[in-house]
């Protein structure tokens, strides 16, 4: 295994030796020494949260550090050449041809006013001096090489006309167009749908083998890195806390933070078993492995069948717009949630997950079917009736990003109390008492009551949002991607809290997520949405173990796990092709 301590290595394409990055404006060191060695054809991974310094390290390698931020120590060697003293011209010549990169949020990395094809062509014309026609032809070949269906069509599009996954493929096409030795993928699959992410990762692996790229893969998700990399660096707050071969990091994590990352996947991810080909079986019961920081709550999903459902949705249809712009956002969706039950909803973005939740609350226009909450039909309430229903607080909602769902000018106490104050009929003292009780129930310190959302951590904020939702004693809690905006540690803690509340409060939950791991970790039953329809529904264990619909199979096969092999790639490829036809 490559290691920073070994001196000269003729195979190394990129070598970082104790790289330190310093912000001159604030006079603080941001990265405290990173060493790594990337061999030709090798893959090195960097894992860490945002602010851990992993992206800065990449920027340093690419020579695009922000103003006032610079490499203050150590050295970066690219293809045996120290990049420290390069002039601007030398950098310009080097970038694209020797090293290139792709990043998170691909849409923002392409010029919105120029057709994407022109941008692929631009690099070829400028850097390789190809003629217009030759560059266009080569560009289309490249778009084909990154498996974009119908490259001529893609060539003519603007950024806003393509999806995130397609744009990332375009960016990869540009990045490999000059056949660089090193490609840096900095959170390149973050915020993409699971299936799309798997596709991009598969593509990277394929390109590595086919054109001999060496990769640096950066992600906040240990599983993404583990899938691809020979060696992993774990970074936190500018320090490399652990570094070594992937298998060692996964099986014998030394640092507490690494253990947390691994535990998160074992707890709430789809951790593949070593034997079974695929997929694993992370039912609530089977994932209840005791881990120091986590106290999972094994629970039976058997419910008295006779109980009246908390939520009954029949043949729900939602569409937006009319005429030719009409878009069906949800079609014929039916589901039942019984008291105390947790139902997960999973699907790619745009599949109709949030539409389903919003239609239940009357926030989306229902065009067909019905919604019954606790036996009452609420499909077509008037504005007045809807408000009265809201004040009863039978259904409550928790949003994805607590920073946006809490009024920045309201203290925790004011925010949590709001549903009760809107309902009215309680005096100040009673409300205060209820707020304190609720805040304790979500494991928040009462001293935080006078704080503003901005003064809290992400996890604390989401607890406040949950407290606000629970204070009106709802029978159904709708959670729309409640942990997606949180980092690993908080994600685990909030899922933990939800499990706990489910048994103590007994509230039923509709848990929406794009992440199969968190859905599997908390739901009794799971519903799979695909292109506005429910394509599969059943016990979570069944969905995860024996998915039937091709999309579900692709989804389960795409979920990043700590161990997954190259055979999955072939299978995924087949499923993708199948879905395209279907």
């Amino acid at each position, binding site marked *: 295994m490559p290691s920073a301590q070994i001196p000269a290595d003729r195979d190394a394409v990129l070598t970082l030796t104790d790289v330190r990055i310093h*912000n001159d*404006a*604030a006079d603080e060191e941001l990265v405290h020494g990173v060493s790594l060695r990337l061999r030709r054809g090798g893959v090195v991974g960097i894992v860490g949260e945002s*602010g851990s310094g992993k992206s800065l390290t990449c920027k340093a390698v690419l*020579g*695009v*550090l*922000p*103003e*006032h*931020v610079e490499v203050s120590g150590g050295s970066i060697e690219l293809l045996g050449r120290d990049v420290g003293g390069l002039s601007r011209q030398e950098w310009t010549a080097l970038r694209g041809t020797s090293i290139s990169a792709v990043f998170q949020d691909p849409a923002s990395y392409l010029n919105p006013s120029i057709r994407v094809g022109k941008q692929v062509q631009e690099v070829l014309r400028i850097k390789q001096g190809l003629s217009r026609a030759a560059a266009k032809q080569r560009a289309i070949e490249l778009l084909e090489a990154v498996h974009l269906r119908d490259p001529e069509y893609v060539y003519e599009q603007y950024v806003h006309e393509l999806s995130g996954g397609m744009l990332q493929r375009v960016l990869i096409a540009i990045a490999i167009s000059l056949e660089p030795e090193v490609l840096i993928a900095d959170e390149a699959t973050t915020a993409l749908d699971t299936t799309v992410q798997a596709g991009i990762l598969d593509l990277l692996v394929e390109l590595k083998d086919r054109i001999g790229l060496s990769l640096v893969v950066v992600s906040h998700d240990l599983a993404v890195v583990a899938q691809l990399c020979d060696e992993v660096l774990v970074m936190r707050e500018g320090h490399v806390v652990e570094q070594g071969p992937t298998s060692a990091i996964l099986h014998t994590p030394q640092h507490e933070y690494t253990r947390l990352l691994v535990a998160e996947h074992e707890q709430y991810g789809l951790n593949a078993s070593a034997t079974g080909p695929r997929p694993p079986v992370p039912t609530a019961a089977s994932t209840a492995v005791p881990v120091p920081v986590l106290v999972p709550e094994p629970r039976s999903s058997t419910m008295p069948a006779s109980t009246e459902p908390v939520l009954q949705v029949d043949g729900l249809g939602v569409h937006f717009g009319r005429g030719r712009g009409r878009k069906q956002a949800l079609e014929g969706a039916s589901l039942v949630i019984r008291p105390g039950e947790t139902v997960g909803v999973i699907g790619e973005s745009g599949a109709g997950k949030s539409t389903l939740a919003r239609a239940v*609350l009357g*926030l989306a226009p229902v065009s067909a079917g019905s919604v019954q909450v606790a036996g009452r039909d609420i499909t077509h309430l008037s504005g007045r009736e*809807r*408000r*009265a*229903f*809201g*004040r*009863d*607080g039978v*259904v*409550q*909602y928790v*949003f994805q*990003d607590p*920073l*946006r*769902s*809490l*009024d*920045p*000018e*309201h203290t925790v106490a004011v*925010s949590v109390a*709001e*549903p009760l104050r*809107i*309902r009215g009929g309680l005096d100040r003292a009673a409300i205060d008492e209820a707020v304190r009780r609720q805040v304790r129930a979500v494991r928040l310190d009462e001293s935080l009551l006078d704080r*503003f*959302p*901005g*003064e*809290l951590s992400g996890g604390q904020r989401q607890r406040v*949002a949950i407290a*606000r939702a629970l204070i*009106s004693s709802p029978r159904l809690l709708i959670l729309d991607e409640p942990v997606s905006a949180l980092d690993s540690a908080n994600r685990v803690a909030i899922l933990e809290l939800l499990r706990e509340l489910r048994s103590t409060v007994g509230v039923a939950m509709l848990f929406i997520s794009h992440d199969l791991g968190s859905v599997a970790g908390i739901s009794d039953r799971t519903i799979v949405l695909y292109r506005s329809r429910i394509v599969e529904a059943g016990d979570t264990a069944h969905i995860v173990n024996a998915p039937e619909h091709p999309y579900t199979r692709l989804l389960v096969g795409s979920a990043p796990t700590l161990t997954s092999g190259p055979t999955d790639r072939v299978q995924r490829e087949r499923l993708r092709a199948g879905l395209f036809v279907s």
Partner: protein
Amino acid sequence: MIRTLLRLTSARVALVLLAIIAVVAVLGPVLAPYDPLKGGAQTLAGPSAKHWLGTDYIGRDVLSRILAGAPLSIVSTLEVAGIALALGTIPGILSVYLGSVFEWLSLRVVDTFIALPFLVFAVAMTALLGNGITQAMIVVGMLLAPVFYRVSRAATMSVARSQYVEAAAIAGASTTWIVRSHVWSKVLPSIAVTLANTLGIGLVVISSLTFLGIGIQPPTPTWGGILASDLGYLAQKPYAPVFPTLLILAAVLACNLLADAIRDAAGETGRALTGAKTARSNRTRRLAASADPSRS
């Protein structure tokens, strides 16, 4: 927010300037050493101990005319801003809540007002409607209202689409509740900024109108009118326009300073509310963002 505002030097300077101007506006006619309408033998005299700012073409004391003209110029500016505020802000906030018909109509009216050549319209309408100061203020107030409409509408929309408003709506909150407890406090700073800016613009417009002799007829002293009469005698007394100009500029500058200070203070308060930690990361993000990597 007000406390944050008062800590800013620019805000203090602006407020001191505005306070002086307010004093002049209230006490101006009392302080005037001479009758602003009565001419004297000395015409177009330079500054002297007797006439600090000299005399005009029929020998009237310039200082007295400026002081006497202050109330009209300042008070009508305040009234113009008030009319614009009321005519713009209320429909601006309501346009978000009153349904699509009102929204469409009010937006088109605002587009139209913005498309009208401001001064031509103000001059024409004021003159046609009777050429009085009241008419002038109503017309100018109406023409300035679109700014308030747009600002308050934009601010309201960004809040109305926020998730915390949606959370309140899910809990059954009425529109009144939402506007009172979530929207109002967030719209206020932008309106305050606009108000301060509008005061400056209003003064310029009122001065322009009086310069043209629209709204108020000579010999009533106004700052614009004084400038107009100075213009005729530039050859004899080329520095004459300096004094009223300085006053107008000082007032406009004070308004602009105040507007900027309010904007800063609101931003500061916003950052304080979203947390010290966020503020710091915001600052580093800003620093990082301000970097232009192509020049590194």
